[in-house]
Structures are given as C-alpha cells and as structure tokens.
C-alpha cells in the first residue's frame, strides 16, 4: 500500500524545514532529521486520517515508521 499523499506532503515539508532533500523510499527519516518523536505523532495522525486505519498504541514504534518503505510495509500489514 502506498503512503497517503497527505503524509508524503508532510514529509516533504518537513524535509524543507530541516534543509534536507525530499526523502526517497529507503531514506532513514529519523537520521535525516525529517522526523523526531513529536513529528512522528503528527505523521501518525495523518496516516490514520488519510489511510483508513486505526494504529494501535503498541504499534507506535519508530521501527514501523523509520522510512517511506517501512511505513508502506506497515500500512499493508494493517490492511490484511
């Protein structure tokens, strides 16, 4: 499942804010500074609002959201 456009826009905006290139599929969003813990909370709100899923609290772990690929993999697993 591809990442919702609103979430991708959010990551692109964050990249601009911190002065790095827009993230591509396997870029580590935390190492690049695009995400921190607070920004991840905002991203999760967007994923829930635009991805048609409810993300349970135990799944809110940086590992599931550290790259666009990881996010897409997680979203696909939630759709099963």
């Amino acid at each position, binding site marked *: 499942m591809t990442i919702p456009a609103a979430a991708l826009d959010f990551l692109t905006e964050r990249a601009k804010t911190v002065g790095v290139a827009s993230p591509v599929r396997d870029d580590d969003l935390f190492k690049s500074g695009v995400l921190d*813990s*607070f920004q991840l909370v905002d991203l999760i709100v967007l994923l829930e609002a635009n991805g048609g899923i409810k993300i349970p609290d135990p799944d809110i772990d940086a590992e599931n959201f550290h790259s666009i690929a990881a996010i897409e993999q997680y979203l696909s697993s939630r759709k099963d």
Partner: protein
Amino acid sequence: MAGSGIYLPERIVSNEEIAEALGLDPDYIFKSAGIRRRRWASSTETTSSLAVAALGRALKDARLAPADVDYLLFGTMTPDRFIPGTAAAVQRKNGLRDIPCLDIRATCCNALYGLQIARALIATKVACNVAICLAEIQSPWLEMSPESGKISMLFGDGASALIVSAARGEASLEILDILLATDGNYMDDLGIRSPGTEFGRPGKAADSLPRMVGQSVILQASRKVVTACEAILQRNHIAVEEVRWVVPHEGNSNLLARVMRNLSVSAEKTTAISVMEDLGNTSSASMGIAIDKLRRAHETKSGDYVLLPAFGAGFTWGAGLCRVS
C-alpha cells in the same frame, strides 16, 4: 479541593549552571523541554520536610487545623525511607491525629490517584478532610554527565499539598471524575530499577539511576493522554470547548502543546497552567503546584471546567475533571 499549598527549595539551578556538565546547550534544554531553571533541595532537606511546609500552607488555605485532617495520602517517588512510608513522617511532623496514613507510588500520576482515593473516601464517609501531600527530592539521583544529560536536565525538587473536603467552599474545585489506566508493558521505558527485589540486592549502580526511553514516552503519552481526556469529557457529556483550564502534570512543554493541539483545544477559550519553565519536572508534585497556581491566580469563575491530564512511569496515565464551585 478546599485548599492548596506548595513549598519550593530555595536554591534555583539555571540551565546555564548544569548545561556544560550535561554536555548540552542551555538553549537546547529550553527548546526541547520548555525548562529554564529548576529548584534543588539542600542536603538538610528531606521529602517529608518539603511536604510538611506545603501541607501547613494548604491547611491554612482551607482554614483547617491539623486536627481536622482525618486521612493522609502521600505521593512520592523519592521517599524519606524505604520503610515506612513518608506519610508517617508527615503525620508526626505536622501534628496530625493518629489517622490512617497511606503512601501512593503511582509516579507522575500521584496527584490524580490521590484525588481519586480522596473522593472515594469522602463519598463513602470514611473521611471528611483528606490531606494529599505530593513531594519529590529528585536532584540527588541525577547523574550530571553527558550520558544522562537528556534525563538529568528535566527534573527538579518541590512539594505541593491539596486538601479535599466534604464541605464545599467558595472557589473550591469540585472533583467530578477521575479516569486512570496502566499498561505495565512499558515498565522499563521510564523508571528506576533499584532498590528492589528484581535486580539484585543491592543491585548494580546503574540500576539506581533514572531510565527513560524518551521516544517511547513521547509517542505513548501523546496518544494515551489525549484518549483519556477525550474519554473523561465524553462520559461526563462535556465538550472540549467547554473546558476553561487545563492543569497538567507536565513532563515536557512540547508534549503538553501536542496534547492540547490533538485535543483540538482552542487557545482563545482554554488556558493551560504551566509551571515547567521555572520548576522543571517535579513529578508527583507538579500537578498540585499547577493547581495551586490556578487557585491563587484568582481568575477562575464559578462553573469553569478544569481538566487534569497526567502521564507517568508504568506507564500509568489518566485525566481528572473538576468544576469551580
């Protein structure tokens, strides 16, 4: 809540004073947590001595004598002694009668647990005037090194006390509801392991230092506190727009801002009472200090709804709902 009081140690410790030892920039501490300074207790002060002073002020505020208190609750993570509970020390030092004295160990949610227990004691006519002491001396446990910088920058010392009475006075806070929850799966993400029976006796030195997985705390607190606030408002049929004051346990100002935003709280209609900038995270004591600040500001009006969110080690979290009488 008919009375409140606080006591803060005299020594003010600025970010500039500790930043170098912690390997941090003073401005980073403020930007990442909203803290500019905190209080540290002297070596002659104890957790109970801070609480005794706060309780004396709370009793005066409630116009009660020590003999009027018929139940004492004490919330702390940093007790005077391993055994017995610190409530016993306060009972003796404040000259209270031979009343029940109970320590609570629900970390940063101690104020909420205390209010829930006090409300139940009064509703069941076990007690008429319940004193809740909330105090911490955390500074001696802070390791002043770069390895522990992001934990040690956060904490301060202080005490608050609340009086919960059956009698309703002018401008007192009526406790409408308290909602609390715990998920022990996160025990290792925030806390201090030792002394205790699980990690050896006396245990490794590192186990006696505070442990915090900051990312887990932020991620879980951001969600769980919002959910608790929404739930308590919903079950009391109150819209978030009706909340006039948010009086939190505050562990991080940025976290509080996220919670306020995710609750869709309007800054025009709702004011958060923050004590973080001057005091840091005083754990058990913080919510009581914020409640005291709200009461002394004399800006409340009869009928104002007050929301009390909290999150702490365990994880345990919750929200309280009060109304100004």
